[in-house]
């Protein structure tokens, strides 16, 4: 099994900008010279209204999209300078959890967790680790189940186990509770918090829901692609105040 070490997963964004054409000659700015730093092992949340640029930011950090300009440095690697295979290798150091799980429907729960390492040789027992991860997310005994026969919460748990197969230093979660009821969502957030402590990893979560974002130690609020607030709960400013403040901003 790959070793997990504390102190990994630091993230730095410098002037990251991304624009999309609207198809009618116009442009939408999804990221506007975004600059922030997240320390290794932190649990941070990107929040903001729908369309504020949260998902785009996660996609750029996860090397799924390339920024137009700016620099992203993850765990000492300048992501924006990587190409081709190096980019794919970087993606294997990052865990990504999607709102709609994005499981492979033809594969069982166990094989979905194994999917990221299917074409590669590892120095550890893949199947053994996948079983351990499924047990860690509360799905022991469901290894042979197909995603189509599992609930939304269970599917998201598979997706989380899959994201951890390579022992990532950084876990990116894009609206991980967006398709779940509140009780299941709370369970998923508890799970992420527990796994972060166990695996010594950095978590960056995107959610439009202030209640969800408030589970993080730090909230970076985006508005029209730019950072509008960077908030950390303190003794003077409890979480409830922050949630109220963000909810009022919309």
């Amino acid at each position: 099994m790959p070793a997990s070490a504390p102190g990994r997963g630091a993230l730095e964004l410098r002037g990251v900008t991304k624009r999309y054409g609207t198809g009618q000659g116009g442009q939408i700015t999804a990221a506007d010279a975004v600059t922030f730093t997240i320390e290794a092992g932190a649990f941070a949340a990107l929040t903001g209204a729908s369309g504020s640029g949260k998902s785009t930011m996660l996609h750029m950090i996860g090397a799924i999209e390339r920024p137009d300009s700016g620099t992203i440095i993850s765990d000492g690697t300048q992501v924006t300078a990587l190409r081709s295979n190096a980019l794919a290798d970087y993606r294997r150091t990052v865990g990504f959890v999607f709102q709609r799980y994005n499981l492979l429907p033809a594969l069982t729960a166990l094989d979905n967790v194994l999917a990221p390492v299917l074409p590669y040789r590892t120095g550890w027992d893949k199947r053994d680790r996948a079983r351990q991860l499924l047990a860690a997310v509360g799905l022991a005994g469901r290894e042979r189940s197909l995603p189509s026969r599992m609930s939304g919460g269970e599917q998201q748990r598979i997706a989380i186990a899959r994201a951890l197969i390579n022992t990532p230093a950084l876990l990116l979660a894009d609206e991980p509770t967006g398709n779940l009821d509140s009780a299941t969502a709370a369970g998923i957030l508890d799970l992420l918090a527990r796994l972060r402590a166990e695996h010594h990893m950095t978590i960056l979560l995107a959610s439009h829901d202030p209640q969800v974002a408030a589970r993080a130690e730090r909230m970076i609020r985006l508005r029209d692609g730019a950072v509008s607030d960077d908030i950390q709960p303190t003794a003077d400013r409890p979480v409830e105040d922050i949630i109220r403040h963000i909810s009022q901003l919309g």
Partner: protein
Amino acid sequence: MNLITTLSALPALENTRFFTGVHAADPISVIQVRVAGVAGPGALSRERVNAVAQQIAQRTGLDVDIVDGSSPSPVTVDMPAGKFGPPPLTLSENWVKKGVALLILNAVDKTSVALFTLILVVCVLFVGNAATAAVRGRRRELGVLAAVGWRRSRLFATVVGELAGIGLAAGLLAAAIAVPASAGLGLDASPGRALLAVPVAIAVAVVGGLLPAWRAARADPVSSVRPPVLAVRRAHHPRGITSLALLNVARTPGRTLIGVASLAIGIAALTMLDAVTVAFRGQIAGSLLGNAVTVQVRGVDYAAAGATAALGALAVADVVFLNIRERAAELATMRSFGWREGALARLVTTEGAVIGVIGSLAGAGLGLAGAAWLAGQLPARLLAIAAAAVAAGAVITAAATLLPAALLRRLPAAHLLAEE
């Protein structure tokens, strides 16, 4: 006894001093005439021979036998015992059968028609596959139309009408290309004849679209929200890229079958032609028949069989392309968790290769069976030809799937991952 000689021997034959016997008064029994300008067994040569035969009969009153294309073949003859002691004998004599070449020519003409029909069959499969994918891609739209009250007949007619329109456009384009192309190749294709491509293209498009249109007519709002590629019913455990490719091929069995059938038809035609030209030459016991058959495999037949095989390979590439399109979100997910581009490309090209090998094996088997049936034997060379056809099918399919595999890099990963 026959004596074959030239006209310069006539004075000697008519002089009773030199030539006596039963037919001394009429020593010439047969005059063999070779017609100038006859090169091979083509239609023009046949007409020339017929015209000359007619003129000889009219001007001389002689009986005329056309022996062009005759084939001596061994016939076993039983001789009864003679009255004065000779025992019964079984003899083998070469009897000449007239008109064999004509029969072969007619068969060859039918072969050409069959080959071009096969091209159209592959085209129908091609259209059917594309139309099925299009209907699948529009399942939401069709489901909504059904929900708002469109009748099944209307949905059916809509899809068939669209395909007929595409067929019309394709036919007009084909006609426009056919005129200059045939002129360039020295063929006779008048604009009127070229326009025959229009009804043929419409017919191909409509026939190919009947099944997808029927499926479209059965659209309902519930089916419209189902995923385009169904999940499997049984659990599978792929251990690597090849086994995952096999699993993916099995997820769309109808489409896979169309790819296999399209390629099999082309490979079967190529195998049969190869077998006829290579394996049968000189194998049919010295008879002219074998040579006649081999001579009659014309270049245009190879062009037709080659075109059918190429279309089959393109059909497989189309299957791979449609699979990529429908499973784009899955492929984007794989990329997001670190699959290299090479691994993704290997996955989709393996899917194409699996279909290609199955189609090639099926086609070579069919071609082998057809050729063996034609010859009444299965020479070892035929097996070598079949193996070569399988290899050729696999190679052209792999080459054809490189094109859709190249599209992988253009997948809008972020968009797909957000939409899934």
